[in-house]
């Protein structure tokens, strides 16, 4: 099993993050674990044509923050107000 996965943004930026972190998103988790050999689970690469680089970066930060939070490290996750709307849409999409 691969340790890392690659997330690609609308603009083509690639984020390589831990598989464990990516799995914070239920949607990504399904993509990586669903049976039947979808391309995502085979290659470990997920492309998001609707998510901008800025947002995807924030999302990746959130994944790591969430992991730590769930392990008991209670810090705050800062969100710039101007990103809020897009971020929430992405969250809905990713079921995070």
């Amino acid at each position, binding site marked *: 099993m691969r340790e890392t996965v690659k997330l690609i943004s609308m603009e083509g930026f690639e984020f390589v993050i831990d598989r464990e972190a990516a799995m914070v998103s239920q949607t990504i988790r*399904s993509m990586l674990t*669903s*049976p*039947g050999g*979808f391309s995502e689970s085979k290659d470990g690469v*997920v492309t998001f044509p609707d998510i901008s680089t800025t947002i995807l970066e924030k999302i990746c930060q959130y994944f790591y923050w969430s992991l730590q939070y769930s392990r008991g490290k209670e810090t705050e*996750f800062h969100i710039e*107000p101007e990103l809020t709307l897009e971020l929430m849409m992405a969250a809905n999409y990713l079921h*995070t």
Partner: protein
Amino acid sequence: MSNQKKRNFQIEAFKHRVVVDPKYADKTWQILERAIHQIYNQDASGLSFEELYRNAYNMVLHKFGEKLYTGFIATMTAHLKEKSKLIEAAQGGSFLEELNKKWNEHNKALEMIRDILMYMDRTYIESTKKPHVHPMGLSLWRDNVVHFPKIHARLLNTLLDLVQKERTGEVIDRGLMRNVIKMFMDLGESVYQDDFEKPFLEASSEFYKVESQEFIESCDCGDYLKKAEKRLTEEIDRVAHYLDAKSEDKITSVVEKEMIANHMQRLVHMENSGLVNMLLNDKYDDLGRMYSLFRRVTNGLVTVRDVMTLHLREMGKQLVTDPEKSKDPVEFVQRLLDERDKYDKIISTAFGNDKTFQNALNSSFEYFINLNARSPEFISLFVDDKLRKGLKGIAEVDVEVVLDKVMMLFRYLQEKDVFEKYYKQHLAKRLLSGKTVSDDAERSLIVKLKTECGYQFTSKLEGMFTDMKTSEDTMRGFYGSHPELSEGPTLIVQVLTTGSWPTQPAVPCNLPAEVSVLCEKFRSFYLGTHTGRRLSWQTNMGTADIKAVFGKGQKHELNVSTFQMCVLMLFNNADRLSYKEIEQATEIPASDLKRCLQSLACVKGKNVIKKEPMSKDIGEEDSFFVNDKFTSKFYKVKIGTVVAQKETEPEKQETRQRVEEDRKPQIEAAIVRIMKSRKILDHNNIIAEVTKQLQPRFLANPTEIKKRIESLIERDFLERDNTDRKLYRYLA
């Protein structure tokens, strides 16, 4: 994002962009539909999950959830219809395999479809309360495949066929079987029950009905039970391998009903191999099997128990009423003990120590032991025999075992007071003749009797032991104060308390001068230390050791009774004596004298005196002289010992009468005790209470109780009520 920070923002309803392209929904759906086809054709490797998910997401977001949902159902239904045709086309044995294969494919596809439609599952279905994708997919499979008319019956028949094959010994593909059955279970409990379990149970019931009939015609009981047990384990095994665990109880109860419950009576009563036969032949395995099988069905154990009880009572009745067998009391009791051991073992090894069976055993024994009125006497004789000689050289633990067993029989006795009477007699003889083997064993039995029946029951028996002990001390004191008596004959006196010992009328006789002098000395010694007492000599109960020298100088020590000693001592001063002379000199009552002369003169090998004329019986005209030619291998010769024996008929009557006589005061005491606390009581209740109170000792006879009540009325303890004659009133 599940971040608490979010709460800081005011969230306004989000306005979606209006979709301009009217064909947007159709186009998107086509993409998804194609993907579903690909998934079903196992051609999904090129697909992008993200793309499909995004499309489904967008459709739902743009309010096309309904379209997506119905579309997914329609597409899947179409696929399943196609598949069911393929399954149906499969020939013979491959039918199940095909079904299983398609089921697995469907499951996998369903999972994938569920994943890409996840957003719909989460939002659209949630809000419209429609069935979720996965259960929907299972229902579709059920309706289009399993319930497809051409598959439905065929599938069931195939499965039942396979089970049938396995029952007749063929090997089937259990793995496949398990998968298919698992499919039923996955489709829901009701599908499993209606489409498989119920018909399966019906078919099994039919199968076992036929088979059990076949078996019972051809097998004996033991074999039948073996087969039934095998079938039962097979079915349990089958459930473990490929059925729902919940089916176990159902299928086993089918087997139990068809193979056991329906044939119970016939099995138990089967000639030459049924329960009675097993009991007689100690067939522990078969009995154990019967127990474990029959306990599964209602009334099974009751049936077994009833038959066993009936057999036990019948057997016991024969045993105790057979006049042949009651000739030897020891043998008689031994047989009872053997039977008891036998059934104890059966119950412990085969019937799992079942309490209800033990109770049945006990009540049966209680029933038949009391059928023979002499049982109490025989049990006491058995103990007597054991304590006299039987226990020699046996370890203490074993002694306890034997005694415990006897106590068990004792517990069954209804007339415990009769036993007490006999036991007292036998114990007295044992103690006085010094024949008891082990003091410990004697005492241990007394303790057992005490725990069983209370202090009252044994106080006199214990009194007897105390007397023996005190007598020893008294004798030491006697010889201590008369040192001059160390020469000459030794007298050993056992002082018995009147009342503690079974009373026998004291038979007087003239003791030889040597002895009577000693007796007088002892009397004055004893009365000197214990004033106000009365001593009388029970010469009929004593023994004596005397030394005798015969014609050619043979020296022997003779162990004889007191009477015999009196007779023999006469020959010190005379060579020849007639019967009359002996009678005059000794004053022994005629019957005792005859018996004692008989044992001295007529027993071969022990005839220390001779008589004329030679005959077996003693006549009043006979004369006696010393047998000079007497020889014996032993230095010590024992003559005419008094051994406890089975009572003769008149003796028995007498004892019986004594027992009845003894019961009277006990019944009266019970009546008074009860009336004292109740003050007023009617006749029937009084009888019931008295019977209950006396139960531990004996079974009181109602007519006897009535007589006692009347006697008490006469003596003004009670009175009849003036208005209701059935009522008794206690008079203080």
